[in-house]
Each structure stands twice: as structure tokens, then as C-alpha cells.
């Protein structure tokens, strides 16, 4: 078994009146692209800054490559950071910015120059080396910040919301770029983001944080398909959450009485009791004019209230009995034509195995 490059053990950080990071423990493996995902104020940036050594006076242990970081100042940790504002020094050229970290730690000029050039090539900034930061675009400045951190050959690269200041097109491009860089260099990346698409598309594993605590750590697919809690299910992608009450557990599944659906049986291998939420992703639902042929499907009759057209897909909102609202993702193919009209009566149905039971 490989040893983790970073171990976070019972890390807690309190500010007056708030617990920013609440007893968090997890491991990050070498060469992993790890994401800390959560809404603003969930403690993800604080945790990243604690790893970098920029936030002190927390409790618990942060172990980087078998070395406890307790008492190790930021300038002696084997990690480097790309800041949200990039923090590219305005009075230095691109080359001087990249060389800075080597210069202050006493790397000889003869060794410095080739390493700087290599780092600049890595982020495709070789031709801009003599420019000042105010002559660069936001995306180029970010590349400077990346090169400046990577030239130090850190064991772990920390990225604090690196793409939030870029426009949508460039953000998508940089997502691919970062994933490619990570594979080429082969070091661990930890990225902090509030953007679930960013985390899902780039990261190997994602820790979803809320109110200072880690709610779930899993790969993108597992996180999306098998969220453990209402919070994670709701935060990652869109999902229909249906209130239900468990009435019985048997071998074939959990029987529950759901709002607007009546009695349904859902396959489930964990515990389930009392009030639960049935969760089903909008793209698992199928709309039809007639009741579904398969009797085993869960289905609800309702009226189309709203259709949001996105070109390839449409988001359809169906109002069913008992105040149940269902969001349905429909591919705009031939079958959908003529069906998607406001006020039309339809059946929304899905396979029971696509349903998750989330304990309150």
C-alpha cells in the first residue's frame, strides 16, 4: 500500500465565534489531484492555508511526506501555493517572478536559469519572460503564478480558487491545462473550489466540505451517483429530493410512503428508518404521454409547468399531486418533440434502482 503524501489528523481551527475547520481527518495519496469543494465559508480555504503554513494556531496534525508540519513556518514547507489573486509581484518581470523562490533560498544562478526557463516553457510563457505583470492578461498572470510555484519542485501544489477570476471559455481551457500539467509533472495537486463542475472534471477525489467539516470524500462518479447526505446530493449537480417515510425493510428493498408517489419499493443496502429523502437525478427520469409499460418503474402523473430550453437538452419541471415538483432532464431528440409543452399532462417515471435513500 502506498503511503499518503499528506495526512490531515483531527485538524481544528477556531476563530472568535466560529469554528472554521472542525475536526477534519483524511489522507491524500501521492500524484493525486485532490479537490476541496464546498460553498463559501465552509473552511476549505482555511484548511488549504493551514497546509501551506499561512494559518497558524490550529490544533491537530498536518503531516506532509512523513514530516509533521507543527511549528514549521510557511517558508520551510515542501508545498507551494497558487493564490486566488495570483499575487504576481508587480515590480518584477515574469522571469524575476519565477526566479524569486529560487533566489531567496540561495539556489546558485547557474542552476537557477535553466530551471526558470524550464518552468516558463511548461506553462508556455517562454516568449513573455521579460514582460511586467501589468502587460499580461489574467490567464497569463495565472500561468506566472503556476510557474513560480512549480519551479520550486514542491511535493504538493496548493491552488486556491485558481480559475474563479477567469472567463468561462478560458476557465474550461485551464481546467484541461491543469489536469495535463498535473499528469506531466506527477506531483500532488490540492485545489480549493466552490465550482462543482471544476471539481468533477479535474479531480481524482473530492472532499465535500460544509460548516468546517468534511461531509464525504469520494471520486467524482461515486460522489455524483452515491452521495451520502442530502447536503452532498444537493450541492453536487441537480437532484430531486422527495420526502418519504420508511414503512418496512425487506430483502427486495425498503418500502416507503413518499410524497406524491404513494408506496414505493427502493433497493437499498444500508439502514433506513423514519423520515428519509428519496433522491433521483433529473437525467434518470423519463417523460411519456402514456403510463410507463414497465410496471416496476416508479412513476408520477403530473403537468408540465415550465420548460427551460438549452439546445441539446431541456430542463422540464413537472408538478405532480400532493405538491410534488420534479425536475426532468430531457434530451431534445425526436421522442421529445411535441411532448414539451406547458400545461401538458405527462408521466414522469424512473427505475427504482436509480433512487437513493438519504437519511435525514
Amino acid at each position, binding site marked *: 500500500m502506498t503511503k499518503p503524501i499528506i495526512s490531515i489528523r483531527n485538524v481544528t481551527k477556531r476563530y472568535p465565534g466560529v469554528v472554521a475547520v472542525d475536526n477534519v481527518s483524511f489522507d491524500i495519496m501521492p500524484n493525486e489531484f485532490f479537490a476541496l469543494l464546498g460553498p463559501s465559508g465552509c473552511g476549505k480555504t482555511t484548511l488549504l492555508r493551514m497546509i*501551506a*503554513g*499561512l494559518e497558524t494556531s490550529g490544533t491537530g496534525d498536518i503531516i506532509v511526506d512523513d514530516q509533521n508540519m507543527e511549528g514549521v*513556518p*510557511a*517558508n*520551510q514547507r515542501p508545498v*507551494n*501555493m497558487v*493564490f*486566488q*489573486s*495570483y*499575487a*504576481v*509581484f*508587480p*515590480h518584477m518581470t515574469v522571469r524575476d517572478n519565477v526566479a*524569486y*523562490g529560487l533566489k*531567496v*533560498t540561495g539556489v546558485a544562478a547557474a542552476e537557477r536559469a535553466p530551471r526558470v526557463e524550464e518552468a516558463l516553457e511548461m506553462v508556455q510563457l517562454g516568449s513573455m519572460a521579460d514582460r511586467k*505583470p*501589468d502587460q499580461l492578461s489574467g490567464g497569463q498572470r495565472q500561468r506566472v*503564478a503556476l510557474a*513560480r*510555484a512549480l519551479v*520550486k519542485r514542491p511535493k504538493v501544489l496548493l491552488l486556491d480558487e485558481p480559475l474563479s477570476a477567469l472567463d468561462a471559455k478560458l476557465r474550461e481551457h485551464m481546467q484541461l491545462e491543469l489536469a495535463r500539467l498535473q499528469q506531466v509533472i506527477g506531483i500532488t495537486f490540492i485545489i480549493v473550489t466552490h465550482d462543482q463542475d471544476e471539481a468533477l472534471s479535474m479531480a481524482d477525489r473530492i472532499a465535500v466540505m460544509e460548516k468546517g467539516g468534511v461531509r464525504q470524500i469520494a471520486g467524482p462518479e461515486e460522489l455524483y451517483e452515491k452521495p451520502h447526505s442530502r447536503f452532498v446530493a444537493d450541492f453536487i449537480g441537480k437532484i430531486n429530493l422527495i420526502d418519504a417515510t420508511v414503512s418496512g425493510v425487506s430483502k427486495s428493498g425498503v418500502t416507503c410512503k413518499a410524497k406524491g408517489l404513494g408506496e414505493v419499493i427502493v433497493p437499498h443496502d444500508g439502514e433506513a428508518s423514519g423520515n428519509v429523502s428519496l433522491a433521483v437525478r433529473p437525467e434518470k427520469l423519463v417523460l411519456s404521454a402514456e403510463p410507463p409499460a414497465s410496471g416496476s418503474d416508479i412513476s408520477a402523473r403530473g403537468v408540465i409547468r415550465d420548460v427551460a430550453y438549452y439546445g441539446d437538452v431541456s430542463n422540464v419541471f413537472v408538478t405532480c399531486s400532493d405538491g410534488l415538483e420534479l425536475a426532468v432532464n430531457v434530451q431534445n431528440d425526436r421522442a421529445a418533440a411535441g411532448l414539451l409543452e406547458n400545461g401538458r399532462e405527462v408521466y414522469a417515471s424512473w427505475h427504482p434502482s436509480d433512487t437513493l435513500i438519504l437519511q435525514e
Partner: protein
Amino acid sequence: MAKRKSTRGPLEYGKSPWLILFGIVTFIVLYAPIAQLIAFSFNDSKRNIVWRGFTTKYYAKAWNDASLVEAFVNSITIAVMCTVIATIIGTATALWLWRFRFPAKAAVEGVMALPIVIPEICMGVAVLVLYSRVGHWMRGFESGPIHWWNELFSIWPLNLGAITAAHVAFSFPFVAVVVRSRLAGFNREYEEASKDLGASEWQTFWNVVLPFMMPGVIAGALLSFTLSLDDFVITFFTAGPETNTFPVKVYSLVRRGVSPDINAASTVLIIITLVATIIAMRMQAPQKSEG
């Protein structure tokens, strides 16, 4: 009769004849005395009331007046010493106020800026009272083993120490205010990035913080230079009989009538002050986009 339509747009006040007139009058009132001072420094007349033709001989006369030159050199010396000391103290104060949190910080900031608002005459009297006290105390050394101490302060430029200290007292808050406002625009992430990249506290200050605040430091230095150079009131109260500065010397000369050599020397002073101010303003001009 057709009414003439105004061709002036709603915000084009520059085309209003009254406004143009007002502007011209303002400029004349502001600058006519100075223009006249400069013009008459070239006047070939002892009484300096009527124009008698162009000459530069009064510049030469001023140059050959030993006491005037001495006062001029004293002024420049005091200004240079004051600038160095006030810039260091002012910059340190600004850094301290920016960097650290401590009790009653707002009160300290307010008190620090007091010399800017206190009337100069009060500062002058206050410094005079303090110095007479110190002088009394220092006379006690004359018979003691460190009698050389008092002699030390009669050697140039230490004999200007009293005036310089007073100048530092009123000019360092200006430096602190200018540097402080420059530092307010500093992104703390620069500092964190520097440390993250392996720099020590001192390296970070030297390589990142200092270059950032340098325009403010230079602007503050030039400000304190000009303030010291043309100060009259406080200097008048603190100058001893052997030490004279240019403004005090001019004041004593003017009492015996304004001769063109004073005009000439004043013109030189104006030019020095003007150049320093222009440099200060250019240093303070907002930087292009940063970060």
C-alpha cells in the same frame, strides 16, 4: 430679432466667457507676485521699484554675500538631514501602524498626525520652551568631565541639530501619512506568496514590501525636504544667534528694504522647491494596474 443660439454644451464650462475671465483673474492674483519677484531679480536697479534694464549681476552679488550663502547652505543642510531622519522615522511609523494591531491604535494614529494640524506658531513656542530647558540643563556640563559635549554642538553641521530636530518633528508625520496611504493598497497575498516561496520575513520586506512602498517613501522624502527648506516660523523660534537659515536671513534683510539680490536668492529657492514638488507629484501618480 432672432435670439442667438448658444453653441455651448451643458458641461462645457470652458466656453463660458465669465468663467474664463474668473480663471485668468485667479491665476494673476496667485502668480503675479511670484512672477514679479522673478522678473525683478533681473532688474538693474538698487531700489528695485522701477524697471531699469536686464542684468544678472544681483545673482553674482547674492553669490558673493557670505552670510546669505551661509544661510542658504545651512537651509539646504538642515533640509537634507531632516529629510533623511524624517523619512526613516516616518516610514517606520507607517509600517508600524500598518503592520501591527495594538490597543488604542486609532488614538495613536490621530496623535501622530497632530503636528500636521497644530498651528506652527504653537509648535515654535513649544519647541523654544523645551530647548531653553534643555539648554539650561546642558550648561551644567560646562564644568564637568564631559565639557566637550557642548563644544561638539558648536561644530558644523551639529550646530544645526536643534533646528533639524524641530524640523523632523513637524515633517515626519507627513512622510508617515503618505507612506501609510501607499501601503493601504498593498495586497497581503504578495507577502504570503513571498513567504510561501521560501523567503524569510526580512527578505520579504526587502524584496516585496519595500519596492511596493518606495514611491510613497520618495514622495514623503521630497515633501519633508520642501517643508524643511521653506520653514520660517519654527526655525525663527529655534535658531540660535550663530545659526541662520535662508528664510530667517531673508526676513532680517527685508526689514532694511528689498534689494534685488534677495529676489535672486529667492528665485533660486523657488526653483529648488518647484523641482522637488514636481518630482514628488510624479512619484505619487497612481501606478498602472497592479497584481
